């Protein structure tokens, strides 16, 4: 299945340079948000907000073909 993935703040470093924060990702059917995070090499020690089609979902949420996934890390600057 194909997913449309957007990463925010410093997570953009985990995407190719020319991706403008957005990338299409191919994952096997039945993959979860956690599988996607692993696939993107995002560190596991970071608490994350995962949005699927505009709704917040937990890491064990099973993704569907065509899902739009946004991942947001805590931002601590001021």
């Amino acid at each position: 299945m194909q997913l449309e993935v957007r990463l925010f703040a410093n997570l953009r470093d985990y995407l190719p340079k020319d991706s403008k924060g957005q990338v299409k990702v191919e994952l096997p059917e039945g993959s979860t948000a956690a599988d996607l995070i692993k696939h993107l090499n995002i560190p596991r020690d970071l608490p994350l907000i995962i949005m699927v089609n505009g709704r917040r979902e937990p890491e064990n949420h099973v993704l569907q073909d065509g899902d739009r996934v946004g991942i947001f890390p805590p931002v601590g600057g001021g």
Partner: protein
Amino acid sequence: MQLSDRQIRRYSRQIILPEIGGKGQKKLLASKVLVVGAGGLGSPVTYYLAAAGVGTLGIIDHDTVDLSNLHRQILHGTPDVGRPKVESAKETLEKLNPDVKIITYQERLSKENVVDLISQYDLVVDAVDNFTARYLLNDACVLVNKPLVEAGVLRWDGMIMTVVPGKGPCYRCVFPTPPAPESAPTCQEAGIIGVTAGVMGVLQATEAVKFLLNTGENLVGRMLIFHALESRFQEVEITRQESCPVCGSEPTITQLEEYTGYCTP
């Protein structure tokens, strides 16, 4: 307390709003807000709160003004480089509105001073630049039941939520533990566009004014995320977590701890 003619003129454009009126203006003038940090978020927050006539503003910041602060920390100017931020902030804000009493604390927020400080104010605004102070402030506000307007920024993005202990989720309900230092860069390391700090700081001031006036709806149970690169806002529903280490049903944090190992610029 009666409003003077000058005060009626100064605040006339907001006094005519039905949600404010003379009564609301007096309420603002009698309010006390503590802003933690006089940097990228603290600048717009204190600017707008002072302009709106919030009567007492406490500002705590241990740092001095650096040239690299000036693209976003609009309280300070080029001649202020090297001066304590609280001193420069006080001068700017008193010039803007002499009605406002500015109380400054040139010190670092710590587990020793935080409870005493926040207890003296009606509302706290988190405008800090690191996770150490962010978690300390959240925990302290939950423990002493003090409302907190929380925001953070990095690069082009920002987030904001209002914590009303007992009424909605706290910062730890969303992010239970601080991220590992190597996964959580500071603005110094990762960069920040000035306008994102501006947008988020102005939203914090908006939350504070509404809370003090008890009008409108606050960001309780909602987190608002701003993406400046796409000019997009995203609203995320957040809920109080039974398992929250500080505001859950069986809290593991019942007194303040210092979070060490995280970069404190």
